[in-house]
């Protein structure tokens, strides 16, 4: 029973890992930029959420209504004001720029919020649970967060494959020059894509801040998880990210069940196994 419990917890946590990875994959997919500051976007969102919940006395889940648009606006502004200058066929300038942003963000965070470790407090909701069958129960909160994460990914997929905006995103991703000659404002497209990525990262940041503690320097570890999810799931597929997240979550949960110290290592080992055996990812879409 404890193994099934661990499996369920892992699956639920995996939905949030997928959310954390989706923004990273999106930015890479459309602009060929590896956003090294993605982890800091996640952490910053958690800190901002704690500020808002403290100031207004509201639940972190409710604070998301405020934080998501705020982070989306920050993403749009950052992309148009700064990162767009580094978008070109050579991925290195953008990589270095976002790496610099990551270090700046860590230092700004530690100055503003101190190095203390924190956690988002959701009140009595944190301990509420549902009994699925004798011996197996799931937390109401993890279940709700998982549902929201999956809903967000389904919305992202719908936006990309069912709307005119998504069509413009995909066209820009394939050939930005030709997209420009079709009248698309690619700078604006890049801004919108980063806005969406930041909003997804913000949601992941809030959920991860509820799950586990965070501090100004935990961004890189969040980034590693996001990378691993993308590599496991396969680049360029939103549902692949969901599967990748769940595989990582389950690996960690089962590892922790064997020995609590194995939690992180088990995830890394599965990631390495995928890199060795199927480097294109388990759910990569065939590109012809």
């Amino acid at each position, binding site marked *: 029973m404890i193994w099934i419990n661990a499996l369920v917890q892992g699956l639920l946590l995996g939905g949030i890992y997928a959310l954390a990875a989706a923004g990273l994959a999106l930015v890479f997919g459309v602009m060929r930029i590896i956003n090294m500051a993605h982890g800091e976007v996640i952490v910053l969102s958690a800190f901002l959420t704690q500020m808002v919940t403290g100031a207004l006395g509201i639940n972190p889940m409710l604070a998301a209504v405020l934080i998501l648009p705020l982070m989306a606006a920050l993403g749009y502004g950052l992309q148009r004001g700064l990162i767009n200058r580094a978008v070109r066929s050579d991925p290195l300038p953008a990589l270095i720029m976002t790496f610099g942003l990551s270090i700046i963000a860590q230092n700004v965070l530690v100055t503003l919020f101190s190095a203390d470790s924190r956690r988002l407090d959701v009140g009595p909701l944190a301990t509420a649970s549902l009994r699925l069958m004798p011996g197996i129960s799931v937390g109401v909160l993890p279940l709700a967060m998982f549902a929201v994460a999956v809903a967000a990914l389904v919305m992202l997929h719908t936006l990309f494959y069912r709307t005119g905006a998504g069509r*413009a995103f*995909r066209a820009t991703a*394939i*050939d930005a*020059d030709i997209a*420009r000659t*079709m009248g*698309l404002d690619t700078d604006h497209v890049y801004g919108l894509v980063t806005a969406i990525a930041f909003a997804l990262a913000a949601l992941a940041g809030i959920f991860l801040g509820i799950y586990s503690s965070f501090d100004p320097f935990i961004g890189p570890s969040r980034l590693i998880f996001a990378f691993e999810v993308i590599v496991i799931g396969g680049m360029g597929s939103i549902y692949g990210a969901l599967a990748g997240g769940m595989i990582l979550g389950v690996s960690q949960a089962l590892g922790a069940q064997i020995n609590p110290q194995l939690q992180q290592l088990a995830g890394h080992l599965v990631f390495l196994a995928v890199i060795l055996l199927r480097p294109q990812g388990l759910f990569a879409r065939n*590109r012809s």
Partner: protein
Amino acid sequence: MIEPRLAAPRLSVEGLSSFYGSFQALFGLDFDLAPGEVLALIGANGAGKSTLLKTLTGLLKAPPGCIHHNGECLSTRTPATITRAGIAMVPEGRRLFATLTVEENLLIGGHVRRAGVWSLEAVYDLFPALRAKRHQLGPQLSGGQQQMVAIGRALMANPDLLLLDELSLGLAPVVVEEIYRALPRIVGPGISAILVEQDITRALAVSDRYLCLRGGRVVLAGPSAGASTAAIIDAYFGVSA
């Protein structure tokens, strides 16, 4: 902004130079294009034909004041602004959005929503072969059908100036014939075109005037009807008669 003059040419190019970094590819080009007129660009590889088209679409920067379209200065504008003003391109090698369906490619072309006769239906009427393939991806189509999508995609912008770069590239002669048969239904009623074509005979047959480029300069120009192929070939290769 200057009001477009009524009698303004569709396109007016004056002293146009263009650069790739420090390499100069075009040297002071001058030519006009009237509404409904078709201009053929003739020249060897590296003569500057594609560079000229890229400069006209804004993908390459043009010096200020060199390009006027319907009386409005378009140099230094972004490619998106230029497309909205009515210039659309069928790029060399087609460059379809490979992971988008035929119909999605066409819809991207229609993104600027200029008013005009071209719509999805009109494009499918022009190229009936595309209607059945509307939900397939570009790479699943034959080369000729891909070229039809590229043309349709440009038409969806309802341009009044169409830039056609090497329509026959890599296509079988019978397919080239089919594509060119559609041309009179595209250009003519108010739509001008600039056409890059390696086959000089064909270029002259479908155009009103021609411009022969060599080394980024105009070396010969004139009306296509009655043009001397021999003189053009001499200009093309730089052999003095």
